[in-house]
């Protein structure tokens, strides 16, 4: 049986699978969002430390 040599240069990278425009979060990588800036400080955090951007801010929300 023919031996196949393992060559990292032949690996398929995930980034090779998609056109450039789709890699990097829709080309918006690192872009600032005022909404997110604001929401980060006001969004509710649950008892396990998860910030939930979908739910309404709660008074007396916890840090963790």
């Amino acid at each position, binding site marked *: 049986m023919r031996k196949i040599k393992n060559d990292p240069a032949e690996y398929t990278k995930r980034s090779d699978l998609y056109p450039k425009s789709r890699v990097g979060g829709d080309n918006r*990588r690192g872009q600032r969002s005022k909404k*997110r800036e604001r929401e980060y400080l006001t969004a509710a955090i649950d008892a396990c430390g*998860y*910030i939930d*951007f979908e739910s309404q801010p709660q008074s007396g929300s916890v840090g*963790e």
Partner: protein
Amino acid sequence: MNLSGVALQDRLYNKMVAPDATYGDQFDRAFDIYQLGLTLYRMCVGDAAFSAQYASYGTGASFDRAEFRFDLRKGRFPNRKALPPHTPTKLRHIINKCIATKIADRYQSAIDVANALAGVDGATLDWRLSTTADMRKWSKNESGTLYEFTVNKSGESRCYKTVPNGLPRKVSAGCKMYMSDEDIEKFLGSY
């Protein structure tokens, strides 16, 4: 999900959040690479030390999110200098590069991280660190021989070696009136 099929993340685990997630809502592998680096960091400093850093911003309703975000973006959280002295230099570099505050300064692909991690080696890797309020203790078991190295708050160190069925014997190179973190790293690397 947006028009390109990229799902937006609606929940974030604040303790492990990347700085870019505090000002943007579009994430890619750079976000994952940050979290991998932070996980490695957490493994190296210990969960208690990491949690203590996080708790310094307050708990419950008094958690200071603005201050936390500021420090996160400035690279002050987590404290890069808190890595224990036996952390191999290469691993330090990898962690620091993964948790760089600027996306462009991080590794740009998972395979780059994997390749860098493959290069981590060194004699200090076998030591296990445990800490108390006034003492740091490193230990390792090498083919049945137990090494225990302690450094107190003032830097005074003691090291003992115990062979199977034997009594602890002093290791003089590890018993000093003062050892800096650099000395500790050197000593741990030599045993």
